């Protein structure tokens, strides 16, 4: 086989759906919209876990929100039949992520766990990934943010504090995944057990709307949950193959 053929076959294999099933992990999250109450606990839990800066009122007024997970709200109908639906929106860790192709310096890439990783040190701040992301879950550091003392003592030492000019987004709490993997390795296990690792948002969700786990493990909670008949992807038509699966809201009539 010539070099080109080898390259081509590797490329094709890489592009083939299901490629990630060959790996130990393909981290996936399901969000049951029927249980989500929109309370925002996930937002604050994420902010606490991931050193997400406080941007201040002025910046928020300019539209520079900084929450890796946010609650979107959509109204239906008018009073008295108005209904409000919530949907938590976070990085979907797409298997065919538009943001990964556009970054000129490969600061964002797909790792072997099926995570869409962001290398802060490598980011030059073209912000094109945020343009390419149809879910708009990438957030840019317009400034160096400050934590007035002693708020800085709360900063999680396992997570980088990002500097100005760098893009950031949900990592599925990769630091927790790393710790769980280390723990598994110390125990002589090959894989992390189901339920051993949970991102901060899933951990705190009081209505248990979120499930997180490894979809390559057919025994896992998340595998069962994502195979629920109610499962769907948001913006399926963009064909990004997200790793976040939503479960449809149930509408009871009458």
């Amino acid at each position, binding site marked *: 086989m010539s070099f080109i053929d080898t390259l081509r076959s590797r490329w094709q294999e890489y592009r083939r759906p299901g490629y990630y099933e060959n790996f130990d992990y393909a981290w996936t999250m399901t969000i049951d919209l029927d249980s989500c109450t929109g309370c925002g606990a996930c937002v604050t839990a994420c902010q606490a876990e991931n050193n997400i800066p406080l941007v201040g009122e002025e910046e928020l007024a300019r539209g520079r929100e900084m929450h890796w997970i946010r609650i979107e*709200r959509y109204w239906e109908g008018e009073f008295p039949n108005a209904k409000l639906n919530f949907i938590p929106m976070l990085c979907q860790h797409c298997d065919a992520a538009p943001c990964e192709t556009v970054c000129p310096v490969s600061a964002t890439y797909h790792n072997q766990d099926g995570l869409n990783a962001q290398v802060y040190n490598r980011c030059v701040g073209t912000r094109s990934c945020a343009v390419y992301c149809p879910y708009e879950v990438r957030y840019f550091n317009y400034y160096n943010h400050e934590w007035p003392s002693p708020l800085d003592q709360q900063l999680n030492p396992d997570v980088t504090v990002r500097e100005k000019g760098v893009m950031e987004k949900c990592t599925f709490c990769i630091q927790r995944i790393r710790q769980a993997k280390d723990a598994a390795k110390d125990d002589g296990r090959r894989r992390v057990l189901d339920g051993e690792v949970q991102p901060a948002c899933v951990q705190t969700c009081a209505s248990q709307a979120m499930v997180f786990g490894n979809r390559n493990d057919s025994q896992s909670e998340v595998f069962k949950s994502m195979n629920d008949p109610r499962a769907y992807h948001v913006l399926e038509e963009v064909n990004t193959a997200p790793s976040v699966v939503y479960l449809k809201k149930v509408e009871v009539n009458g």
Partner: protein
Amino acid sequence: MSGIDRRDFLKLAGAGGAGAGAGFMMRESTKHPVEHLVPYTSSPEEFSPGIATWYNTVCSMCSSGCGISVRTREGRAKKIEGNPSHPVSQGRLCAHGQAGLQVLYNPDRLTGPMARTADNEDLLPITWDEGISQLATRLGSLQASGQGDSVCFLSEGVDGHLAALYERFMAQLGSSRLVHYDFTHPRTLYSAIEKLFGDSQLPYYDIGNADYVVSFGADYLSTWISPVNHSFGFGSSRKGVNGVRGRFVQIEPRMSVSGASADDWFAANPGTEGMVALAIANHIVNEGGYQGDDRDAWVSALAPYSPASMSQATGLSSSVIIGIAESFLGSQHSLAIGGGSAGNNTNGVDTLVAVNALNYLVGNLGNEGGLILNPEPVVGSGSGTLRATYTDMIELAEAARDGRIQVLILSGTNPVFNLPDAAEFREAIAQIPLVVSLSSFIDETSSLASLVLPSHTYLESWGDSFPEPGVGFSIGSVSQPVVSPLFNTRATGDIIINLAQEIGLSAAFPWSDMEEYLKEGWQQIYARGNTGDGTEGFESFWNDVVRAGVWGETTRGPSPEGLLEGVIESIDVAPPEFSGSSANYPFVFHPYISDTLEDGGAANLPWMQELPDPLTSIVYGSWVELNPLTANELNLEEGDIVEVESPHGRVTAPVFIYPAIMPNVIGMPIGQGHTDYGRYASGRGSNPIQILSPQLETETGDLAWAATRVAINPTGRRVEIVKTGGVSRELGREIIQKVGADGADADGADHAAELSSIPVKVVRS
């Protein structure tokens, strides 16, 4: 080098200088802030660098008493999570609980004791000895001269041994003025339960096992009593844990978080929720085949409340009321809960009596998925009954004005903010010769103090908690310090013990500190015998409880046999009374506990300020909610600043058009409008409590904060409301997809397949 003459030299020097300058600017503009990395040369014993230590303790952000686990690294608290073995939080936590870290690490915390030497002077630092002895001298002389009753202790609601310690302290001083005050305290629910079952307490509502929940105004998922536990139950119920997907109905004038999550949301006229409940009861008793022995009594008591006759007053059609009644009766585990604005009208207690009577009618008392009464409190008399009503606070203010109060000790509560201007509480406090604050922060009330003895936050101090609604059986948790104190502050318990000893009450306060007192108190709990397996001796029990973060007994309290005598006959909901005439004040004012800032206590936490309001996505501000029709009529748009005028004052805030509020109701969140509460809260928004009329709930004498009428006066000014959301309509994009549950949709066949995983009960076709 003869080539370089003076001019060339100057040119070169100039060019070099410019280059160096540009380089310097470039470097200056791109360099990182200076950071210092100081490693441990010898690490302290309790931890190893790089390894997280978890401590179980209790959340004190609200009164639900969730068990929490705090992750600490290198001696600093990094993250709070729910304690999985705690029955209230079950490992989960709400946004406020998460933000507890910002109470601990708040940059506006008081760092040490301070005193004012004269009026209107700045607070100057003093030592703890000075502060304690200054207060002890004063208290001692009052006690000695028999004027102990002129000492008032005004605290936030606390429970467990700290509450007992307060009681003991005040009793020793000879004062009866121990006042616990919380704006959000569900006082009317205590009274309603007492009226029905004879026991003043908060019952446990087993939402998780219920499959049909009707909530009358209670925002149980966000602000009401125990949101984390309720949300856990909500999730379990929605997933069909009990065999059927839970269905939730919300009846309230303005859609709350719980209303948004409900399957059916109905807007009843403010204050008529109790009438709706009685109309439902009427249908259950008359048409639904209620077979209890007391049916006749019910029939005659409920005669005036037929669904048809109530539809005019409540604004709900009789078919809606009958529909709810039939579902309520037809479901396996129906549950009715009430609170929020429904419990804070002039007819609050009657409303809640009517609501909770529904639970009796479907026979869910003490059952799974029903109303479960809690056993006797483990320590003291339970905190809920201690809390002051509005009338108590007015009485206190009057006493202060009359000079009957010499010393006021404040701890954690902020009545100046949380009481209407009509109460004139600030002016009353100004009359008190010595105001001492034990709060961790300066707020509107503690800024009036002339002696500040700041206490630890809950993450630095010992304490315990016996959650009031509990989970239907006795539980308790010990709260332990998870970090060493950040500042020169002291635990509230320690301050009290220290004070008592200084005054000379050592006999009654023999403990060296709170921890010792607590251990002694827990000896009695140990003596109850429910100590778990393999416990040997108290020390081992104590260590187990502290480590696990929870202790509990699985024996349920006595389930009520039935209602108290005479309850059925007296059941009646009077029409609500509102302050202000409907001609001058055309709208009913609906202030509500903010989903992010609670009653204002969380406004100094920047995470809470930046957490978008779940329903509007607004951050960092106040707003006034108007129905689109009302806004159209008044020619107002989002961002127009209006003045909300009640008979007792005015506040201004920008308009937000809210699609799910009744056209004759004006909503406004409580929480903003602080004048003196740290950098994150001060000078932001406005406080709707200010303009509330001092309208009282008729039975408890508590403030009926949902019983004020207002007028809306446009000011002509505009601001851009700061919010994170854009356009909150899907525009046909199918972002949130839905599946119909009863196959009534055109593609019903598909739905059946989609619903196979979730047991949805078809209630009616």
